[in-house]
């Protein structure tokens, strides 16, 4: 187990190096000169030249890459050309917000998706199954930005129950924070809930058809013990893997939802950075997200181990 962990953590380093090279290279492929994009409306040539020099944009690409990696190893992720703030500060400001949104969305997705999937499996072929499928498909197909705007119009403008936007830190005011996050979490969660529902349903169906379930029932166990303790725990295994992937996706920033609800998270940060050719910010965010993804996958594998005794040797 520890050897497995060690090996996986060791792979993290070359993965990140590879990711860093890809994101660095891809950005250079983007048409558009960051110095011109950053220059004021007047496009003063001297200002452009100075911006180029200040951010090393006139140096060859491998030098720029080397400078950037060198900075990262010392904890300096560079500076946002646009707002003149260190990227590390931006990352630290936005990461908790995105994590909170991801966690809440995950909760919504699990609370809706898992029971729906179990019910679907138990009532396979009957109306609860079809209803759950329809709801799931709706959640998956509805565009996030449309659902978001509709919810704002209903709950904020017409009913006035929830704030239309904004983020308050949970340490400042937990209640206000939850009020602000509930709509975006719902919008994001419903999309993922459908995926969970479908996977849980098929996993449960598979498990329910197996021998040990028949044995458990034959032993006379209560149905809820059969479903809850035996069936669901085994069906949960593929769902855990899925959950890790979906969580990683949520961490990379729900761009549209964050724009609609004005949540200052990663999504907004990276989109603005791409349009403004703010290379350092894009690279910092991608590196952060890639690390999170790899670590989450590792966690999923560990959870897999813990849940399935057969894998423990």
């Amino acid at each position, binding site marked *: 187990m520890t050897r497995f962990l060690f090996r996986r953590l060791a792979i993290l380093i070359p993965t990140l190096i590879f990711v860093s090279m890809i994101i660095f290279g891809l950005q250079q492929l983007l*048409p558009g000169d960051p110095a011109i*994009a950053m220059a004021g409306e007047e*496009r*003063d040539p001297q200002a452009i030249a*100075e911006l180029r020099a200040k951010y090393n944009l006139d140096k060859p690409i491998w030098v720029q890459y080397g400078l950037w990696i060198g900075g990262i190893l010392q904890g300096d992720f560079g500076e946002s050309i646009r*707002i*003149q703030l260190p990227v590390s500060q931006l990352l630290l400001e936005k990461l908790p917000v995105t994590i909170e949104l991801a966690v809440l969305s995950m909760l919504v997705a699990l609370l809706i998706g898992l029971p729906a999937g179990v019910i679907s499996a138990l009532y396979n072929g009957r109306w609860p199954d079809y209803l759950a499928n329809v709801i799931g498909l709706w959640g998956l197909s509805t565009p996030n930005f449309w659902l978001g705007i509709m919810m704002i*119009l209903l709950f904020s403008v017409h009913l006035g129950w929830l704030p*239309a936007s904004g983020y308050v830190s949970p340490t400042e005011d937990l209640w206000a924070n939850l009020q602000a996050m509930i709509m975006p979490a719902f919008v994001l969660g419903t999309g993922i809930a459908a995926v969970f529902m479908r996977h849980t349903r098929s996993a449960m169906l598979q498990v329910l058809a197996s021998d040990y379930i028949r044995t458990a029932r034959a032993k006379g166990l209560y149905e809820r013990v059969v479903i809850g303790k035996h069936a669901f725990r085994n069906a949960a295994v593929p769902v855990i893997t899925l959950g890790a992937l979906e969580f990683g996706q949520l961490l990379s920033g729900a761009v549209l939802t964050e724009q609609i609800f004005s949540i200052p998270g990663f999504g907004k*940060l990276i989109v603005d950075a791409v349009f403004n050719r703010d290379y350092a910010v894009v690279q910092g965010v991608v590196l952060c997200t890639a690390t999170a993804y790899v670590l989450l996958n590792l966690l999923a594998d560990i959870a897999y181990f813990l849940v399935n005794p057969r894998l423990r040797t």
Partner: protein
Amino acid sequence: MIRTSALAALSAVVLLGSGAASAQTLRFGLAEDPDALDPTLARTFVGRVVFSALCDKLVDISPDLKVVPQLATEWKWSDDNKSLILKLRPNVTFHDGEKFDAEAVKYNIERHKTMQGSQRRGELSAVTSVEVVDPLTVKLNTAAPFAPLLATLTDRAGMMISPKAGKALGEKFATAPVCAGPFKFVERVAQDRIVLEKYDGYWNKDNVHFQRIEFRPFVDATVRLANLRSGQLDFIERLAATDAKAVQNDSKLKFASITEIGYYGITINIGKSDKAKTSALGSNPKIREAFELSLDRNGINKVVFDGLATPGNQWVAPTNPAYAKSVPIPKRDVAKAKQLLKEAGNPNPVVNLVTPTTTDASKIAQVVQAMAKDAGFDVRIQATEFATSLNMADKGDFEAYILAWSGRPDPDGNLYSFHACKQPLNYSGLCNPALDEILNDSRLTTDMAQRQAAWEKAAKIINAERPIIYLLHRKWLYAHSAKLTGFKEYPDGLIRFVGMKM
């Protein structure tokens, strides 16, 4: 007895409470997150909105574009017009308590001119030196007379930061800006909010009625309006034209608008690169004329801006005193356009129109495409992301380009950098020595009548060459809570917070 006194006590508490409530927060919705809050480095319009609360300038403009006092109370040009002498307002302090005086002005102008990455260098390039005459009098010297200088000082180039803070923070000034405006900086969370607080030492503090201003960026116009309607915001800028009616019909909101000092136009590559020789529009002025005649500016206005814009054919709106009356807006004339194309020997020219992917530009492009088709033009829309399109324009890698300009108070600001030879914003590549001479002459005198005469001549040349086909001047559209009073519209689109109250 007891009940009456309890009632009295209660009403006293209520009255006290409501009195305290008049010291309030204005929540302002911006269309995007500002860039660095440093007047020397700043480059966005939204940044200027925040600056109008944070940083006072030497002079300001009035709603009819006249220069009015702010930190400077009087000014005059020397006899040879090569020096601008400004008398400064006494007893003004910066947010950190430092005195505002002529030394501070000298520091600021020099900072604008010398700091690495300064965006103000071009604007102040005419200023050769700054002299401190006495603590409240400062003299800006130029090598040759430069009429637009005063107007330049009504924007960021005239904004004054505290020298103490400037020296202490250097290029990190934007992290904690210290200026002399009605509100001082409290905090900024990138892409979330900028919070300012009333500065009790402001020279005009009696007319400042808000205790705090919170600026929050909302990129999507629908979301911005939804937040206003739900009560999260009190004021929004750049309302979408299609939402204007909804705001006007809402009794809890007020609608406001004013014509901008900028414009929307189609820049044509007539000499910036080789594309000028190979493209239909770039190579033949007759084809450019035909293109202009095929367009119905009123139609574009109606379809794209709901009639809320002002059609125009020059770099200033027809209502502007600097508009050349001898070059009126041509009416749509498809027959003449077709005839011109026949004369040019190209009845169905192809036009590749680079269009930024903003909503307005895309819509304008589509309307233009449809209208020009009637005359025989085959307009192909090249939807391009904005930063990419700027790059293309810079290299001359385009035939026609839909581009807007936010405008400057002095007409020279809409003119010189675009049409004088090899200037930074001259994307068309126009290089006409006669025009250059006229434009240079218009800068040398402060006599408005003479400058106006020069602009009339310039208008004729520009109209003949058509490096830019000017289409229209948008309106700045605002929406705010009906409880808010004292808001006055200014053509530069900025909000002056002094005098506003809720």
